[in-house]
């Protein structure tokens, strides 16, 4: 399995000292190279789930196994390193660093993972997403579609085992949506990278063989009852 969640619980503290359960997942799995769309209502915990899977947030309890390693008990600094090496991110708002060129944005991901960079590989990634002549352009000089393509190239910089995409086409014009989606899926397929894509758009979800509805396997209310008991 590339991704395996077992008895994952996550709650937030809210003002007044109460606990707000957000995740209550007994089991969830994705096989190596599998691609799944994750759909769910707003505020349903999708972003929290991605943060827990990526190690940005630690679950209260449970196991989060990525590529055979349970990252839940890891100290933060180890999780950071693991995330850099094994998990790629494509954000809804691209999240490119404005002071860095397209190439530097890709190299930056490598820097944090290994402390060294592979310029040739970074260039090949940009070429792969169709930005051969945009290597030295800063985000401000790229179109929205081009920015998201840089983001896709960056997510692959460390040859991740798992790619998490958070509504990557939501801010892209309709003409580019299909292009970006295909690019992400094809790139993952070529590199046998497991893909979990959060989306609201049914036309995006329809492209996936596997579509998971968060509310089908996430029962935070059960966490509340457990806590009460």
């Amino acid at each position, binding site marked *: 399995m590339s991704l395996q969640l077992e008895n994952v619980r996550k709650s937030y503290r809210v003002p007044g000292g109460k606990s707000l359960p957000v995740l209550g997942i007994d089991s969830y799995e994705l096989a190596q190279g599998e691609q799944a769309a994750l759909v769910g209502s707003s505020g349903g915990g999708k972003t929290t789930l991605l943060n827990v899977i990526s190690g940005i947030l630690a679950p209260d309890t449970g196991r989060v196994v990525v590529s055979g390693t349970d990252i839940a008990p890891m100290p933060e*600094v180890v999780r950071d390193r693991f995330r850099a090496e094994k998990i790629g*991110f494509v954000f809804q708002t691209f*999240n490119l*660093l404005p002071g860095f060129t397209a190439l530097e944005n890709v190299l930056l991901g490598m*820097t944090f993972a290994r402390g060294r960079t592979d310029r040739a590989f970074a260039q090949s990634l940009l070429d792969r997403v169709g930005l051969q002549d945009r290597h030295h352009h800063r985000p401000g000089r790229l179109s929205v579609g081009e920015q998201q393509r840089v983001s896709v190239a960056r997510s692959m910089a460390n040859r991740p085992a798992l790619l998490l995409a958070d509504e990557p086409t939501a801010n892209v014009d309709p003409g580019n949506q299909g292009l970006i989606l295909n690019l992400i899926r094809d790139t993952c397929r070529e590199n046998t990278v497991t893909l979990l894509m959060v989306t609201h758009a049914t036309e995006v979800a329809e492209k996936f063989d596997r579509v998971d509805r968060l509310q089908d396997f996430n029962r935070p209310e059960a966490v509340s009852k457990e806590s009460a008991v």
Partner: protein
Amino acid sequence: MSLLVIAWKSIRERGLASALTALSVALGVMLMVLVLVISGAVDSAFSQKSIAYHLIVGPKGSGLQLVLSAVYRMQPAIENLPYLYYKELQKDRRVESAVPMAFGDVTEEGFFPLVGTTAEYFTNDYTPGKKFRIGKGGKRINDDFDAIIGSEVARQNQWIIGSQFKIQHGGADGTHVHNEKFTVVAVIQQTGTPNDRTVFVNIEGFYAIAGHETPLGEVEERLTDFYASDPERLKSALDEISVAKAEVEAAVAQGGHYHGATPDAAKEVTAILIRTRSDFDAISLRSDLKEGYQAMAVNPIVPIQKLMNNVLGNVKKGLMVLTGMIILVSGISIFVSIYNSMSDRRREIGIMRALGARRGSVFGIVLVESIVLCVGGGLTGWLFGHGLAVVAAPYVTAATGLLLNPWAVDPMEFVLFPLLLALAALVGFLPAMSAYRTDVADALSN
């Protein structure tokens, strides 16, 4: 991609604000460098290195006044010593070189001090290891009214070899202009010492100026006072005066004037520069002079060092504190600039953390930014400071006589950069901690 490159890109992203904060550090450091260069030149001008004599002998009085008048020509002379006393010192086995100086007059034009001395003054070093160099076409003093002038005198009065000038009695406020005309026979090349602002004449010429001779009766009185404790020497001196008196009276009896040379016993000097054979000889001679006659010998450095420590030293300290505070304020402006930018950069930091940057890495990036601004600004200021000193050096020398060495590095400058580094770490710490504590999920959701 190193943390330095990442920090540099962040600095460039906020180009104007970064440049202004670095500039404020640069200005502070530039001021400090200028203070150090100027005070270094002042230190050098008033230190042992600048005077190639062990002792200055003059009439009893203020040691500081004696040094300021004989070496720096900034004060009027205290009084005079008998020329015979100079001759005695010359014969002392401990003395390697004794150079008489007679001064008190100034040039009519520019009020530059006039010093009557001997050729030995020019054959001796003016500072240890440095000989006077005479400009092209210059020659030795042969005539009583020949003069050698310093480079600044030549420049300011636009005098060249062959120029003639008159002198006036006393300082700039003196009113009596002597009739004798002196002729420039040589111009000394720049030394960076008070010699540049001095006119030198033959000491015999100095005595030959009308009005510079002391009436023999008065000379007798002064010799009696001076040699009161040494009857043998007094007798020999008075005998010489009696001979001179007899010659003058004989000339007057024949209805004429006395035109012979001034007898040595009637001559006086204002100060005597002494170079001893060893440092110990200098101590021994000074000790001897303390006891006898009416003369004193001072180590030229001691009173000047006192002056430097008590007055100039404090001024230097005050300026250093002031420039230090300017740098501190600049450091605080770096803190404000980086700290204010942190709220705008939360997302940027969140992205880096999501990409795998550890807390320590983002802490380091912000700290390196602070260091780049502080040390980069400091380095720019250091170059500006020395560069400005290069530009200003000729003007400062012309105005003050101080010879600036624009690229002379004060030991304090070696401390400056570690201090800037410490300041950068101090002012960068809080913003760096803010980056360290950034909640990734929060930063990305914003």
